[in-house]
């Protein structure tokens, strides 16, 4: 099992630690509902050092990453952060990532914890005229999120004032980026373990609430964001997922494009769903329209902000907002309807 630089800090705070893809990570400190609320209404900090940043540099860095991912990278603004998906030739998803395009010759790819090794392998194996370096053995990542996050972080990093949403900046302490996974204002800091510990301690002294992976999941689900292994996977194409907006089929070329075009007419669809009957749908629950099985739940939870039971489903037919479906929870059909994403 692997630990982040902050493991003992989490333990000292009384965190409940879980095994997350081989990492000993804090699931919660005081409780998922309370931590969720802190991020929606004030500010919270997540240790996400298990995620991985991979550095790509060379004269054709942006073109190289552009050819490997579904979203447009080439020609974007300097210091832009772009959400994108890495596909295989067959159109299935290797990972969803944030590309930090520092300049045409320097990009970072930020991958999920569970995928960082294979993302590095994949990118390295295709590298031409670029140098691919994993930064994750030497650095950690903190996400500070919530309506009060920017004003607090500005006290520590005055440079933050000049960084707009979905942009980043290289500082002497690391990379500061206006990104996150909660749908709130916020930042992510990529820096040495030492700097991460220093910043964490400072945030604690300011009363910023530590938030675990439990609330991270309820926060992202309310915003309809994909979680790799649920909405995207080795068997789910990005065009079938809630991340379909990040696939630009009109791009001249990218790995997996032909397969995704081929899939267009027979692809499955993901929708946001609110349950009407009591119960909570979880991943793998079966979905029916009338008597007909049409798909499965990919993620489901109780939404702490809406106080409703919500889920994302993946189904074969196209459905419209308001359509009624049944979700089988422990073999009992529960009435539910399709809503527009995000939930919140």
């Amino acid at each position, binding site marked *: 099992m692997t630990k982040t630089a902050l493991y003992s800090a989490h333990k000292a705070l009384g965190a409940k630690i879980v095994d997350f893809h081989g990492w000993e990570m804090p*699931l919660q400190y005081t*409780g*998922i509902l309370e931590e969720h609320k802190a991020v929606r209404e004030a500010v919270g900090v997540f240790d996400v050092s298990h995620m991985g940043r991979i550095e790509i540099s060379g004269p054709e860095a942006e073109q190289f990453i552009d050819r490997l991912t579904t979203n447009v990278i080439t020609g974007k603004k300097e210091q832009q952060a772009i959400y994108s998906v890495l596909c295989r030739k067959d159109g299935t998803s290797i990972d969803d990532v944030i590309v930090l395009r520092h300049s045409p010759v320097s990009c970072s790819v930020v991958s999920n914890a569970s995928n960082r090794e294979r993302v590095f392998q994949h990118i390295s194996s295709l590298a031409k005229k670029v140098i691919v370096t994993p930064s994750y053995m030497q650095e950690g990542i903190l996400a500070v999120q919530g309506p009060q996050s920017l004003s607090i972080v500005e006290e520590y990093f005055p440079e933050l004032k000049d960084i707009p949403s979905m942009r980043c900046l290289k500082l002497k302490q690391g990379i500061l980026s206006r990104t996150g996974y909660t749908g709130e204002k916020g930042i992510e800091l990529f820096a040495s373990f030492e700097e991460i510990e220093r910043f964490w301690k400072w945030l604690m002294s300011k009363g910023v609430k530590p938030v675990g992976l*439990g609330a991270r*999941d309820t926060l992202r689900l309310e915003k309809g964001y994909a979680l790799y292994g649920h909405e995207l996977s080795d068997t789910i194409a990005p065009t079938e997922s809630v991340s379909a907006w990040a696939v630009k089929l009109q791009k001249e070329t990218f790995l997996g494009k032909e397969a995704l075009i081929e899939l267009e007419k027979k692809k499955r669809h993901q929708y946001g769903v609110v349950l009407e009957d*009591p119960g909570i749908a979880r991943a793998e629950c079966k979905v029916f329209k009338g008597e007909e099985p049409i798909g499965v739940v990919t993620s489901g939870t*109780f939404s702490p902000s809406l106080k409703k039971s919500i889920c994302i489903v993946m189904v074969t037919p196209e459905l419209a907002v308001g359509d009624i479906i049944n979700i089988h929870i*422990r073999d009992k059909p529960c009435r539910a309807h399709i809503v527009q994403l995000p939930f919140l």
Partner: protein
Amino acid sequence: MKYTETHEWIEEQGSAATVGVSDYAQKELGDIVYIELPQKGIQVKAGDVVCVLESTKAAADVYSPVSGTISAVNEKLKEQPELINRSAESEGWIYKIQVSSPQELEKLLDKKEYYKK
């Protein structure tokens, strides 16, 4: 009060008994947001799944510590499932049962034995 290996508690009151989940179990589950209560009047056997607790992260089955007929359920939990987090071994009780085989109670753990585990 007696406990099961599967983290329920049971308290006898004559031929009836009250059942809930232990304080340890509620801490492990985290915030409970929904409970599927058992039906009043149904007959259950010891070890049957009688209801389900849903926390923000997962669902957990509740097993009946003894056999019998369910005589009452804690309706308050429908609106306030968090009562289980606040008071698992008192106000957060789940159901009452008319015990059909009192000898089953003898096999259960006492508080000391349970909390040693």
